[in-house]
């Protein structure tokens, strides 16, 4: 209720700015916070996909049979936006093949399969206790080679984000909100490894020299907030003065990048833009801890903290697990009791359902949720929209979700875009409150997908049209040039002929006859080129000409059938001209024969 917020005079309150909408689903975080972060035992086999980040696929740089060491690069970054993949443990590469990976569309992707040798022997490491003395380029290169990506969910290569133009960036937003229900990976990380997190902040601060560093965290994580405050005290004075821990109210989706920036600064990231446009960088706490490990310890991103939760698991909690571990093995370790109805990677609001448990864990796997039917019931069949407007009240992007759904249903893409479909962050708040249980987000995803596809198709068609027209113009030009050359030759020949004719004009009668013939021929050429004078032609010659003309007609007709609309008229004329010529020749042939 905006009126209430207005009455509370929220804008004047220090610390945070209210964003519109949002919901309060049961947070279900306690069950996975009972135990400290566990270490998952080494497995016999790891499957490392080459697409664990946004951007170009990494390219495998090992071959089957190779011995690899822990932390060794096994797939290299390809292109500007990309990240390498590392061996999660030492062992032998046993296969490089396409395997299913965690992806909303059940994608299969090249995976490097490693049979572990159980030794977990590291490649030579070079920790940098003296990291503050290193250059920006060195730090960035180290980050790039460590394969660090955004661990909040999007998996954008961190080194690429940190390579941004430094001049105008003055604020670092540290995202520790973790608003999604069930997930506690960030909370567990903060409460146990706050010093590492602050090291990461220091590294990034070295790159940018921020004016202020805002750490956002929801008020339902008192233990993590305490750890943050304790860690802050250990920071050097100059840095500590620029750091602010901002406790924000618990309201989903406060941890969305755009929402958190609004909460902490009262500013909006422009539509289609990035936080950089406001001079801000936003990093997840897990990412920053990984940055510290990579730069200071020379420990590339080969493991992450994942929350195992849901009532189907007897052992719920957070676990540090190597990338490429089979999800099956994790669930078995957590005491999965029966075959689950659903397996969700990520949280209940924005996670996606996996269609099989045998997939590898990847850099983006912040949570594995195995709920029982009682816990998260399957939604009942959707009823028609009653336009109650609850969705609009909770939309953090101030969209009109129900209007968007109508437009998506009636395939009015232009109206959907006009109503800012692409500003939808797919947080699912609208679908959560919908009393008709309409899968709204699914409509938006489908609409976005269709619009993208149609735009791509349109562009392709446009390119094809331009290509066709260019080809047509080239052919016409070639034909024109050919014709010009032919005429040139004909003229030259004529000139030669008339010269020689003049030379022998008065010599003999046959010559004058020839001149007559040439004259006749010239008049013929000045007329339609294909209807040469026929007076002197034999029936055989006429027959040959007729065959030739028919041949040409057949070709022209075939061309007409394939012709683009804009060329059709010209082709039509050619065909009818040829038809006339054929009629004429036929008549002459008849005459010649009789």
């Amino acid at each position, binding site marked *: *209720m905006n*009126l209430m917020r207005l009455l509370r005079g929220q804008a004047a309150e220090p610390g945070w700015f209210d*964003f519109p909408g949002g*919901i309060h*689903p049961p947070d279900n975080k306690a069950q996975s916070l009972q135990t400290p972060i566990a270490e998952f035992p080494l497995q016999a086999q790891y499957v490392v996909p080459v697409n664990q980040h946004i951007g170009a696929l990494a390219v495998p740089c090992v071959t089957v049979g190779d011995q690899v060491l822990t932390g060794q690069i096994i797939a290299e970054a390809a292109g500007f936006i990309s990240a390498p993949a590392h061996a999660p443990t030492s062992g032998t590469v046993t296969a490089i093949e396409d395997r299913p990976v965690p992806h909303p569309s059940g994608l299969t992707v090249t995976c490097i399969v490693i049979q572990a040798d159980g030794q977990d022997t590291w490649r030579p490491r070079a920790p940098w206790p003296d990291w503050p003395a290193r250059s920006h380029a060195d730090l960035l290169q180290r980050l790039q080679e460590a394969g660090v990506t955004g661990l909040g969910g999007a998996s954008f290569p961190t080194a690429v984000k940190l390579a941004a133009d430094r001049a105008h960036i003055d604020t670092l937003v540290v995202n520790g909100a973790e608003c999604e*229900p069930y997930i506690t990976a960030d909370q567990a990380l903060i409460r146990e490894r706050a010093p590492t997190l602050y090291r990461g902040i220091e590294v990034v601060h070295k790159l940018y020299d921020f004016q202020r560093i805002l750490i956002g965290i929801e008020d339902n994580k008192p233990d993590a907030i305490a750890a943050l405050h304790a860690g802050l005290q250990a920071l050097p004075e100059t840095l500590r003065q620029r750091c602010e821990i901002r406790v924000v109210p618990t309201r989903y989706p406060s941890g969305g990048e*755009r929402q958190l920036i*609004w909460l902490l600064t009262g500013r*909006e*990231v*422009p*539509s289609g*833009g990035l936080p950089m446009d406001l001079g801000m960088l936003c990093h997840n706490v897990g990412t920053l801890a990984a940055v510290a490990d990579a730069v200071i310890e020379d420990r590339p991103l080969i493991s992450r903290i994942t929350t195992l939760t849901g009532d189907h698991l007897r052992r719920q909690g957070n676990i540090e697990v190597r990338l490429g571990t089979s999800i099956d093995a994790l669930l078995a370790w957590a005491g999965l009791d029966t075959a689950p*109805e*659903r*397996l*969700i990677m*990520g949280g*209940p*609001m*924005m*996670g*996606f*359902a996996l*269609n099989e*448990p045998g997939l590898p864990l990847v850099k983006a796997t912040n949570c594995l949720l195995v*709920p029982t039917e009682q816990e*998260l*019931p399957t*939604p009942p*069949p959707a*009823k*028609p*929209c*009653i*336009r*109650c407007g*609850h969705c*609009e*009240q909770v939309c*953090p*992007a*101030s*969209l*009109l979700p129900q*209007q968007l759904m109508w437009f998506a249903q009636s395939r009015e893409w232009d109206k959907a875009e006009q109503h*800012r479909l692409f*500003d939808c962050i*797919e947080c*699912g708040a609208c*679908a*959560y*409150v*919908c*009393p*008709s*249980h309409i*899968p709204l*987000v699914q409509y938006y*995803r489908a609409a976005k997908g269709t619009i993208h596809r149609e735009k791509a198709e349109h562009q392709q068609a446009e390119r094809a049209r331009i290509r066709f027209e260019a080809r047509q113009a080239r052919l016409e030009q070639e034909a024109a040039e050919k014709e010009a050359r032919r005429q040139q030759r004909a003229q030259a020949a004529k000139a030669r002929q008339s010269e020689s004719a003049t030379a022998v004009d008065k010599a003999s009668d046959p010559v004058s006859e020839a001149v007559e013939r040439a004259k006749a021929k010239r008049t013929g050429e000045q007329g339609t080129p294909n209807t040469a004078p026929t007076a002197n032609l034999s029936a055989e010659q006429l027959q040959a000409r007729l065959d030739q003309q028919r041949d040409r007609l057949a070709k022209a007709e075939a061309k007409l059938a394939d012709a683009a609309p804009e060329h059709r008229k010209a082709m039509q004329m050619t065909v009818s001209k040829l038809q006339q010529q054929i009629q004429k020749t036929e008549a002459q042939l008849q005459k010649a024969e009789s």
Partner: protein
Amino acid sequence: MLVASSPHTIGPVSVQQVMFRVWLATLPGFAALIWFFGWGYLINALLAVSTALVAEAIILRLRRRPILFFLTDGSAVLTAWLLALALPPLAPWWIPVIGALAAIVFAKHLYGGLGNNPFNPAMVGYAVLLVSFPVEMTTRWGMPAALASEAHSLAEAAQVIFAGLRVEQTLVDGMTMATPLDVYKTETALTSAAVVREDPLFSAGWRLYGWEWVSLLYLLGGVVLIWQRVISWHTPVAVLASLALLALVFSWAGDQYMPIDLHLLGGATMLGAFFIATDPVSSATSNRGKLIYGAGIGVLIYVIRTWGNYPDAVAFAVLLMNFAAPLIDHYTRPRAYGEQRT
């Protein structure tokens, strides 16, 4: 394993619950109606609701839609219920029946059923009745219990409703009267406000006669709905504010214009503002749109009551603004996060 699109969890509110909560919020006002004006309201409600359910079931069958799935959503019950609250309590039995039929068959299902009706079905039903049967719709209001020589029982009310005017002429005359809005309007035209105020309907302070109580209880129900977030505050606040503002502006001429308290607490203002105008299907969607939509209703209520032929105007005001809702929506799309300010 089940693979579905996110989110994988649903909130606690369903369509049935929305309908049920709205229905529940009308109950205090409904109880007051029965307390002050007799059992006719209950009979009306039962007639309207049962007619609506039967009509909905038949239409769903004709439209080959799942019958129980839609019948149990509670929307037909609520439509008929709201209609019955607006009908004169001693109207003949066929009034609620025809009204409910018009609402469900014409206003709801001919436009595509739940969620697709451009007009508020209950108000369509009411308007059909008011235009078609003006006598039955204006003269059968119950005499407030405090004014009637003897309180009428459920049996008596049923007799009037089902047996009709001709059988119990005297009883009906002793039991029915026009509404305060009607009385005020008719009588000020003949005399002056001062004289009208002497009418027992006003002079005794109408706390006795119930209208004020009914309205205040509707207000209470509406506030509960806003608190529960079933409805947003925008529409009712806009309706009441615009109506009150106009009533204040014109309050200098008491002989010509009704006083503000009568506007706000007389007639169907509170019922309309909290339960009719907030019907989401036929109203504007954005918050700003709802403010405009509600303000339009408030203005139209005032205009029709003051310069129109009908003593009350909620139904027509709501229906007219239903027409305008798509246009309002077109011009009131809120600025999205990150969208350039224009």
